[in-house]
């Protein structure tokens, strides 16, 4: 990758594939991002201008983050309440949990973490009742403080 500074324009990041295709990302001084793609031998490049939000989305697709949601922490903040931040934890159900209910495991009682949703075979169960039994392949979505999430991962999921 080649990084070069373009005064008054911004910064350019450039990659050339072995085939000779070129991709350039330019962070404009205005805060927007231009994405150039120039196929080898093409007359004109294709260009799109993205906002930083859009660029971040494209970026996370490219890094594969969207495709491998195995375990992910998302922090949600609200524009109205600036100091309220909620950590949302997404993780797959582990072997030792399968066949047991939320109540059986005592997740809330032992760790303070609340399960707010389950994703099961492509369907989602929002605020599952305590008697819900985990199945293999479930993805759980939980909220809690960072410390509580850690305890939950250790005690309930059995992860180190």
């Amino acid at each position, binding site marked *: 990758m080649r990084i*070069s*500074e*373009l*005064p*008054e*324009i911004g910064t*350019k990041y*450039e990659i050339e594939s072995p085939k000779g295709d*070129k991709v*350039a990302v*330019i962070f*404009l001084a205005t805060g927007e991002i*231009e994405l*150039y793609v*120039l196929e080898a031998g093409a007359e*004109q*490049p294709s*260009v799109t201008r993205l906002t930083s939000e859009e660029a971040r989305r494209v970026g996370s697709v490219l890094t594969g983050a969207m495709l491998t949601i195995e375990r992910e922490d998302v922090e949600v903040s609200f524009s109205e309440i600036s100091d309220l931040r909620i950590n949302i934890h997404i993780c797959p159900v582990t072997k030792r949990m399968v066949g047991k209910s939320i109540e059986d495991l005592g997740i809330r009682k032992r760790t303070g973490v609340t399960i707010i949703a389950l994703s099961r075979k492509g369907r989602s169960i929002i605020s599952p009742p305590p008697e819900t039994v985990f199945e293999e392949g479930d993805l759980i979505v939980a909220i809690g403080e960072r410390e509580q999430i850690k305890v939950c991962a250790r005690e309930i999921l059995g992860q180190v």
Partner: protein
Amino acid sequence: MTFLVDLAVVTVSCLALGLASKYLRQAAIPAYIIAGIILGKSGGFNLITSYDFVEWLGKIGVILLMFYIGYEFNFKGIREPGRLFAGCTDFGVNFIAGFSLGLVIGLSLIEALILASAVYISSSAIAISSLIENKRLIYPEAETVVWLMVFEDIILAILLVVLTSIMSGSFAIITILVCLAVTLLLIVFILTLIRKLSNFISPLFERDDEIPILLTFALIFGFSSLAYLLGILLQALALHLGISLQCHISEVIVAFFLGSALSGVKSFKKPFGAIISFKNLFLTIFFFSFGMMFQFQFATLSSTYFVLALLALITISILGKFVSGAIIGKRLHGSLETGLRVGAYTTPRGEFSIVLLAVVIGTGPGISELLSSLVVAYVIILSIVGSVFAKHGDRIGKAIMVGINKLLPPAR
């Protein structure tokens, strides 16, 4: 309340013509100058009541422009050998071309120097916006063009120091040297002062109230007037000693170096955004005021001599940029065609040629009307023609290559 009417005339006419030129995808600078020529003083509608007022506002625009360039100037990046080579080639070819033509058409030595400077300096604004709009940023020559513009900025600063010193020194070697020395001393003073004070002023720029912008303008106006007062002081001092010494220290040079000094203060980033808005507004007023003050005589315009000189000037300027571009392209990119594209992108002239002329004229008498008419007509034409060149840079490069290959069949 006539100043409100003046302001309304300037802003409304510039808005209308500016919008029209953006709609037509043309450079807006000639539109603002033309607005000034038509609505301003001579030969036009004469709608402005207080020329001084509009001119003062325009002067602020020039100061802010130079401040902006100084702030953005990248001293580190320009030292790369390839960029230095490109910059020197551009300067050498085009400055000499402009200077020689100036002498041929019968200008004085200083006028030929001014003409050469106006011919040399491309319009960064037009070149850069055309690179973005025409999707050229992925190509290697975009980088070369952008750094050429940076190199031209520092040459502009040097040319301004030299030309204003020569003008205010009334062409006598001793006074020119005194002016130069005082200017350089003031620059060093500003650079060291800002560096020493940076710990003190840095937190002031971080405030959320009116203090950061006030401080910025206090620095800009403070140092600009210091330059002016120093000139007067020097004159009085010399008179006391029985010497007649005219010394005018250019306030725009001071602004340039103040800007580059403040780029070392990290927290200045915050008020700088506001400065850009002020610069855009006042610079537009400057172009209007320049057109307004410009004694555009249609009689001169129609004289054969003037038309021939103008045509020669335009031809030489376009050729010059293509020649320097070709040399740069061959050396840096190993491709003549890339070089021709560099030439096409740097063809437009604009804000800097006008600013340079206005600043030098403001320093002292001795500039003929022929030169100023020539430069204004030249900039208006070359900013329009140049935008077209910059827009179709790749096609022009290809067309010239086809022509060259036909004339000189490649050796087998």
